[in-house]
């Protein structure tokens, strides 16, 4: 059994503590916004200049001046504030965002992240705010499937794609397991797939430390 995209998002969202300030990267990570625990106040930051961002706007709430980093219309809840782009990225670079969640092409066992460029010769490079988020948040989480469609493990000894940030990823939430990287060591915290640690390690082809909590 593997987790669906929504289930990964839900598992991830459960880990934000009350009061956490969180930036959800465009694409897959945005899903986590739908699963924020209702008994906690999670404050969302969006790179295009808003703190306390609301949920996606309903049809009749759409306002072209109020969008998230993925350019999707959102809402303005109580407590929101706006600021310009330099202030918004100062917030990241200055280490004020508690958590950011990014998608990933590859994560290395020491926490390097590659998520912006396939390295293909004819690819047009486009980085957006990924590198700023990767180095800026206090806790950088990655959310992705563990294997590519071709069956390649996306957690690797060393990234082969161009890097986004070095030694920055702290946790990787995947469809098959949850990983933590501490002091350059990769540890499994939970396995969702129907396999044990040894089988997971063999499938992945990288050294795994046991961080599983006995059920």
């Amino acid at each position: 059994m593997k987790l669906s995209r929504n289930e990964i998002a839900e598992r991830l969202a459960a880990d934000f503590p009350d009061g956490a300030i969180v930036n959800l990267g465009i694409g897959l990570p945005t899903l986590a916004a739908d699963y924020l625990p209702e008994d906690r106040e999670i404050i969302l930051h969006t790179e295009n200049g808003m703190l306390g961002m609301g949920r996606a706007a309903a049809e009749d709430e759409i306002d072209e001046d109020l969008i998230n980093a993925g350019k999707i219309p959102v809402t303005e809840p109580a407590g929101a504030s706006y600021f310009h782009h330099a202030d918004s990225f100062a917030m990241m670079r200055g280490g004020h965002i508690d958590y950011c969640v990014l998608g990933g092409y590859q994560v290395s066992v020491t926490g390097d992240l590659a998520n912006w460029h396939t390295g293909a010769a004819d690819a047009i490079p486009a980085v957006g705010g990924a590198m700023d988020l990767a180095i800026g948040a206090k806790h950088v989480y990655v959310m992705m499937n563990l294997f590519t469609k071709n069956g390649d493990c996306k957690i690797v000894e060393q990234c082969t794609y161009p890097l986004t940030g070095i030694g920055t990823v702290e946790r990787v939430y995947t469809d098959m397991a949850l990983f933590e990287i501490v002091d350059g060591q990769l540890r499994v915290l939970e396995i969702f797939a129907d396999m044990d640690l040894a089988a997971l390690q063999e499938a992945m082809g990288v050294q795994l430390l046991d961080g599983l909590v006995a059920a």
Partner: protein
Amino acid sequence: MVNKQIGSAAEAVADIPDGATVMMGGFGRAGQPVELIDALLEHGAKDLVVVNNNAGNGTTGLAALIGAGQVRKMICSFPRQKDSQIFDERYLAGDIELEVVPQGNLAERIRAAGAGVGAFFTPTGYGTMLAEGKETRHIDGRDYVLEYPIKADFALIKALKSDRWGNLVYRKTARNFGPIMAAAATTAIAQVDDVVPLGELDPEAVITPGIYVDRVLELPRNAPAADNIAATATAGSGSTAATAGSAATAGKAL
């Protein structure tokens, strides 16, 4: 008496020369100075260096400017998008230069230009291909890359309201690059929904003080139906729409 209001989009961009570096505000549609960009297209200045977060979407605005061959180089963070086909084509054909800058470095470099900072060390991009060949330094336990200001000859931005001194307030996430681009450009041109009498803007909420703004063009967003039709009918020309806008406020005491 200071009065920065200008009558039309065409007039606002008329002195942008070939080869100019032009910043354009906006993140997606929010804060995009559509009519000013359209006027620049019509004006026809060539060989431009354009600074924007993206490299044009669809077939209008910046995309149209690129399509018309007026842009020599793009400085942006995120050129490749679903609908960036005009840029993509030009780029892959080798017809346009591209400098990709991480979005926060882009913003901070623009800010540095306005703030008179000669260069700064940023942790963003360290160790990546976007920092290749750049000076690096280890400071207080962290690795940094040295980045330089991005200045512009002109900035085209959009705000919600202005007064005749050019003080600007923005609206929601349409603020984005506007304030820093206004400060980084020799000549900053703002299109606004509404020019209000001096003293009507809350001094605590003015985001761009008038010192940074050189020209203000009023283009009412929520004008009465008749005006809206006029504005739509002339989209692309800019100047007529702008005239309609000015006419709508001609009776105001500024």
